[in-house]
């Protein structure tokens, strides 16, 4: 049912959707504040807001992203995620049926990730002040003893691993945006990665740093790591795991697959001698089955990410500027 034409959508009304939608993933009471049991170890704490359009896309929805995104941000610092808060900003006129589907997706994703939804909030704004649903999630997790992941630990010679095919999520979202079709049926690969991360850390291999290459793709992530670490990164274009459908879609859209957003993928920088061990462990996990080494850390060109082309040339991978502006004059 839609509330656009009828009476005002109220926060209470909307809230009544969430508890059933969340199912078992929710704490019995979704209060204004949650009191939680003591934890062993260092706390990790993260927050992120989700504004993806459209709200539903092949393979997922904004609900999955809101859970997996924050879970993954916690996982990337090596934390085991424990609790999430969910806060919604809903535009007046958003169909209640859609909200219900979003809530169910949040519940399902939280259950799958093994995190509890412990507190939340909802605001309704005038139609025109917003559009559809925005979700903020915050999460806490606990970081095991001895886990220290930081860009500053990167050293020349380290290998760069990506946990699977890149560009899939971004292309899935774009494929249904604004009614454009490009003959592809790529589905988003959104997933919670903390299980994969736990397996990787359990190898004892020296993982220097991990990131989930979401907005701006692998390119933005590696640029951030290169700047933060003062090292250079060299990728080999021939090693990049880009599915044919993603390559074709990017060819049409004029995008570089390295700049397309991912969910459910991680980039790990690993000491060279531990690379095989880490890679084998990743490949044994369902979310890392296609993990592969794509490049290495170098001392040359600090702060700059370079892709080696098939013919022995180099292409500098700049920090994406957000918009694809033609440069060919």
């Amino acid at each position, binding site marked *: 049912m839609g509330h656009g034409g009828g009476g005002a959508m109220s926060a209470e009304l909307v809230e009544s959707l969430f508890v059933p939608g969340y199912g078992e993933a929710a704490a019995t009471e979704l209060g204004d504040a949650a009191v939680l049991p003591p934890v062993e170890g260092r706390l990790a704490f993260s927050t992120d807001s989700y504004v993806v359009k459209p709200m539903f896309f092949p393979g997922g929805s904004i609900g999955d992203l809101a859970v997996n995104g924050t879970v993954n941000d916690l996982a990337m610092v090596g934390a085991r995620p424990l609790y999430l808060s969910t806060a919604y900003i809903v535009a007046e006129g958003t169909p209640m049926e859609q909200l219900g589907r979003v809530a169910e997706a949040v519940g399902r994703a939280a259950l799958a990730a093994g995190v509890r939804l412990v507190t939340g909030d909802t605001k309704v704004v005038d139609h025109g002040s917003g559009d559809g649903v925005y979700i903020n999630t915050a999460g806490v997790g606990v970081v095991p003893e001895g886990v220290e992941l930081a860009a500053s630990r990167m050293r020349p010679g380290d290998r760069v691993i990506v946990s699977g095919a890149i560009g899939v999520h971004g292309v899935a979202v774009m494929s249904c945006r604004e009614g454009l079709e*490009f*003959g592809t049926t790529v589905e988003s690969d959104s997933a919670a990665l903390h299980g994969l991360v736990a397996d990787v850390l359990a190898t004892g291999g020296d993982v220097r740093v991990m990131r989930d290459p979401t907005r701006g793709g692998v390119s933005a992530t590696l640029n951030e790591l290169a700047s933060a670490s003062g090292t250079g990164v060299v990728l080999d274009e021939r090693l990049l795991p880009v599915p044919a459908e993603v390559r074709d879609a990017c060819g049409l859209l004029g995008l570089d697959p390295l700049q397309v957003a991912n969910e459910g993928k991680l980039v790990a920088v690993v000491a060279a001698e531990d690379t095989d061990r880490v890679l084998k462990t990743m490949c044994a996990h369902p979310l890392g089955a296609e993990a592969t080494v794509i490049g290495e850390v170098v001392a040359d060109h600090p702060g700059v990410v370079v892709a080696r082309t098939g013919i022995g040339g180099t292409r500098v991978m700049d920090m994406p*500027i957000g918009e694809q*502006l033609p440069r060919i004059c």
Partner: protein
Amino acid sequence: AAASGMAQTVRRRLVVRGVVQGVGFRPHVARLAGELGLAGWCRNDSTAVEIEVAGPVGAVDAMIGRVVAEAPRLARVARVDELDPTTRELPSPFAIDDSQDRHGELTMIPPDTAPCERCLAELSDPADRRYRHPFVTCTHCGPRLSITRALPYDRASTTLADFAMCDRCAAEYTDPADRRYHAQPISCHDCGPRIALRDADGSLLAEATEDVLERTVAAIADGRIVAVKGIGGYHLACDAANAGAVAALRARKQRPSQPFAVMAADLETAGALVDLGCPELLDSPERPIVLLPARDGAPICAEVAPGLGETGVVLPYSPLHHLLFASTASGRSGPRALVMTSGNISSEPLCYRDEDALERLAGIADLFLTHDRPIAVPVEDSVLAWSERTGPVALRRSRGYAPLPVELGAGRPVVIAAGAELKNTVTVVRDGKAFVSGHVGDLESLASREAHARVVEQMLAFHRASPGVVASDTHPGYTSRAWAQARAGGWGVRHVEVQHHHAHLASLAAEHGLLGEDLVGLVLDGTGYGCDATIWGGELLRLRDGGRVADRLGHLGAVRLPGGDAGVRNPCRTAALALLDAGVELDGTAPGDELTDAEASYLRGVARTGTGASVTSSTGRLVDVLASIIGVRHRIDHDAQAAIELEASAARWLRANPGLGGVCGDRSSEVPRGSAKGEGAAEGDRSSEVPRGSAKGVPDLPFALAPVDDPTTPQGEGGPTLVLDPRPLVRATAAAAPTADPGALAFAVHRAIAAGMAELAAASCERTGTTTVGLTGGVFVNRLLLHLVATDLTRRGLTPLRHRLVPANDGGLSLGQAAVAWRTLSM
């Protein structure tokens, strides 16, 4: 006073500025003084050549007149100032002082030029001690910029510093009567650099000169690819008549279709390959590559420059090149025409260091013909296009020309301009002179970015300048802009961003010394970032306030570009979108046939939803659209390929149908404005060659011009912004394409664009009260369009103003950026 029997004696002191170092200027002065029996001295310093002479008044006057009038062939005298004479005792006979460096305003580095006739005569004279010496040179020829490490230009500051002259060379070097007096790169077999032949893994195959040449010539004749170290860097050479060798070079360089330049042994050989048109250009000391009409049955394989009807030809420009074409010691003769293409990996800069070349070109070259004279400044070949109607049109201004300056005027600021993203050059302004670097290239690769930074450092070091401002484009995605921002921050100076087409027009004004005057200009270009954050490229701008401001008075209407640069690489996509936007269904059109199902459904979505494409006013994209609709080119693998092939198609048709290319249906004929006067008319617009009236087979295509309100136009500019709607032209071309001769249609769209643009310019001139129209932007390297627009403007009584020095394309952009920034700070 009573007349004495003695002639009156005078003493005078001069300072000669310009390109006066490294060109034999002091020897020339000394020879004159000797001939006239004058006492005195001259010296090079870092500012100029200074001369002081004394003697009979008539002889001194004669000397001063002849110093400039008979200046050496490579000298360019900018100015002569007279100073008060010194009181020191003058040497007699006249003497040359040693160089001294005064850290002031610097003279200019001369460009690299081809061996002069006398050096060539020595090269082929068995009796001469420099017979077959691969480095023969004198004060009138040879390498300059490429071997210069610092100023003042002196042996010690060149890459020959480590080669100690033998006694005989030293004697020539110090003899004022000798042609090699103070010729800095002087050498001979005994004391000079040496050539060597290496294989692809770097091992030495031969090092005795004749052995090296023998084996190199044999290898080329056998179809091998040889990396040749020339003047400004390495080239990849192979037999231009050997299809297997050319195909191997294309495959290894991953360069499927972009034309290769051909080095012809001599003018006669060149004449068999192409219609020489303007032999003086090919044979000039600058030795550019010149694009000329290919001859049918030319003795080279078609894959060298496929499908264009033109070949880029260059004559040998180093003694080593000449030796490759001469018969060897054993009497063997190699091919008379060699493919000579830049020694680089696709999109990377020219290799010029030996280790670097060996490493990077190992997968391309079979052999390396190298030598041990280091290259200090890499210099790419210059490229000019030529046609009867337009004369030379610069595509790339580099070896032979760089770094000759453009005078901006008097003003202190030191400016460094970062240039464009593709076809990059860099400009340094010092003491009111803008020095434009040679071609740097496309800044996509790490190596190119390093080359860009190195060129800047080198130019600043040469000029001992620290910049007061760094200029760049405004494009948020340009590396050159990010570089400028970072460097300006690092130096603590201002960063001035200059809109792309403003810079193009300023470059034109700068090279003509017109920065101070209001100028209307048609800037027809590929893509540049506009002031409204859309992509521009079909602009009618007015430059004012000394070049600091450009107003957009008119432009081409929207041509939408799907998928950014991917749309540029696939003209059929841009064409399909343009057809849909113009209300034409794709079925049955050439782009419609070319598109994949996925492309077609995607583009229909883009057309329907109005999203997924950049809005552009780009003439280059419109030309792409028309090329695809006519079926000339749907996808490109090198820069401007569709536009180049469309022009070639039209030019071929014009050659086959002389007299049919009438500017028919010409709307401008309705508004006669009197006869053409001024520079444009003098520039050889031979409009009389082109008969008027509707010609058989040439469709008359519309290009509507409509004034449209545009809020970005400043008030009081005489009316709303003028917009040329491209849709009628797109529709009409699509309607004509199924039945028209493609060549005739290619010509017709050129004419339609020219007529529309001329109309746009004329309407703007009327509003602004100006009569000169600048023609710039990359589209104006299209000689046919340049000719048609210039002719049309001339007929309307307007004066077209075109580039003579810097290219109309992005190679000239750094000059424009520098000029605007310099003006901004000088005023």
